[in-house]
């Protein structure tokens, strides 16, 4: 039982990170119909920026968090005004934009390698010290923090999309951009807001995970694949379903590596994604975009 609970704790923490990535995918997808494959690299930027500000510059966590949020904002604006808007205004098809997000991700990785370094670096946890021990299970404070922050963000974003005028308008943009514009919604500004939310959430995911696995330019892809799987399993439609799916994937990954075979763990994650892609598209169409 203690082994099962220990695995479950890791699975929930790791899965919450996948859920945050899923959230990042969903917010941009809702607003623009674009699947952003740079999500993993955005997470990497969060981790590397945390390493740079916390470990190299020595700012301490309060200032580092502020700094990382600023980085997220700048990155979101760069993404929106340097990539997305110019392509939309030239009438680029969505497939081109998807490829552009892949290129954007590659450039981010290369930039991190050039300007920060190309190995993996350790990052101090927010609360240093011994892990919490509950019965026979030990929990790193950082893992607990991941779960709390991730679910708080999901709650906040759910609130934003369902209870605020801006959020509801943003959903309207996702459902029918022309109709929304005709009704007086400022579409362009709302899409920018969607980019800011998506990038910030993902970057925070990187900041949270860095103390557990270190920060490095190549860290994003493996996490992003699972986050994408979570988004697809969540139906590409709902913020909390993506999060629940992320946690489910984290749990399956941990439990199957222990009870089935550790060597097959990555295969299992890809198999889940494969099944999700094969089985899910019908559901995405049915459900449409809603929060």
């Amino acid at each position: 039982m203690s082994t099962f609970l220990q695995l479950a704790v890791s699975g929930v923490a790791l899965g919450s990170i996948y859920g945050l990535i899923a959230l990042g995918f969903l917010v941009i997808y809702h607003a623009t119909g674009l699947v952003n494959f740079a999500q993993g690299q955005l997470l990497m930027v969060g981790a590397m920026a945390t390493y740079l500000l916390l470990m190299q510059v020595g700012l301490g966590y309060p200032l580092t968090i502020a700094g990382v949020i600023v980085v997220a904002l700048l990155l979101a604006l760069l993404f929106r005004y340097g990539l997305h808007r110019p392509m939309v205004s030239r009438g680029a098809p969505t497939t081109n934009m998807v490829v552009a997000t892949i290129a954007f991700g590659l450039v981010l990785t290369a930039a991190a390698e050039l300007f920060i370094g190309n190995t993996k670096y350790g990052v101090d946890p927010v609360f240093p010290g011994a892990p919490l021990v509950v019965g026979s299970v030990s929990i790193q404070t950082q893992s607990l923090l991941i779960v709390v922050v991730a679910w708080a963000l999901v709650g906040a974003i759910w609130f934003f999309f369902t209870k605020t005028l801006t959020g509801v308008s943003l959903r309207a943009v996702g459902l029918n951009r022309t109709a929304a514009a005709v009704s007086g919604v400022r579409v362009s500004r709302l899409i920018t807001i969607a980019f800011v939310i998506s990038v910030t959430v993902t970057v925070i995911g990187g900041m949270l995970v860095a103390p557990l696995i270190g920060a490095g330019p190549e860290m994003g892809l493996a996490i992003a694949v699972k986050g994408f799987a979570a988004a697809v399993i969540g139906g590409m439609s709902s913020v909390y379903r993506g999060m629940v799916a992320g946690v489910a994937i984290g749990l399956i990954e941990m439990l199957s590596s222990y009870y089935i075979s550790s060597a097959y763990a990555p295969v299992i994650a890809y198999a889940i994604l494969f099944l999700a892609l094969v089985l899910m598209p019908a559901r995405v169409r049915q459900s449409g975009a809603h929060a």
Partner: protein
Amino acid sequence: MNNTRMLRRTMAVGAVALMAGAAFAGCAPASSNTSPGAPADGGEGSSETIRIGYIGPLTGGSASLGVPAQHGFELAVEHINASGALDREIELISVDDEADPTKSAAAAQRMIDEENVIAVLGGPNSGPVLANNPVITGAGIVQLITIAQADGLIDPASPGYDLTFQVTENNTYNVGATIQFFLEADYSTICAVADTTEYGQSGLTAIQTVFAENGLEVSATASHEVNATDLTPQVLTLRDAGCDSIYLYSYGQDAAVFMKTVNQIGWDVDVIGGRALNQAAFLSIAGEAGDGLIFPSVIDLDKPEAQEFIEAYNAEYGEDDDPAHTFSALAYDSIFLLAAALDASGYEGGQALADALSETTLDNAVAGRSGSSLSFTEGDHRAPSDNFQTFWTIENGQFAMYRNDLPSKRP
């Protein structure tokens, strides 16, 4: 030096653009950084310069092995050229393979077709070396494997054997030296963990073979993908198997995550590591969780050659670049072995160079315990002599030499 760095950075920026393009086209990118003073056309080697290639990971997860190796090569080239020991200049041409076997084989083709190199230095990852070796030796060019440790890289049955040489001790040498800690301690349940790369899996095979030969049983093993995000299942698998000692044969960053998890669950178990723990990434990510771990090294701090090398290396690249110095030292020695053989072959490549290498000995090598040597002989293409290995540990978050008086034997 600043100019060199600038040049390197500029070239790398170009390479990045290439990479982005190449990735879409689905072909293997090859980013090159040529040392300063390289002929712009890169075509025919002038009679004054000898071109030596290096294929290794300069970006990506293994760069913390590949870049220190490159720096070791560069420093050796700089020292040899400055000393005037050879009547020609050596020029190093580095191509990035990102530790990807496919890209590594493509890089090898490029070394042959475009770079006109006389010999190729193999990188730190065994998988890519296995992939690029047939291309290099198939073209009649000598390959000197610097850091990659898989036993199978030197195989008398392989067609490229005559032209392939390994400077580093291999997995079996490493494991054979490390086993004395397990023998001394009389553990009841020995377990091993490794990643699924060529390094990890061939290491696991070497562990099982060598331990069986010494009458020890490896009771349980666990594997994981490289750059794993969480190793809780692996740690719990070994804990629940009742292991009282673990042979940790993973690359630095995964080994660090493993040790952090061992600490987190409060498991008191003896862990002895493989040579990849010399990576800076291990130290950086593991923090206190790495303290007390013992692992093999090639650096003997009591040896003057090692002291001088470390001083020169730190002055040029900084103390954090390769804090354990294992990888850069092997790279440094490789260039000196190659230079001695080139001198002997009259700067002739191919079989003539291989014949010369087969008679080359480096007595004042940087790597290896005091009194050991790196030497190739006819029919023996593995350089380290007996008693080559030293052992290091981590004390208060820093690399520190643990023992340089334990015997080690060529397999």
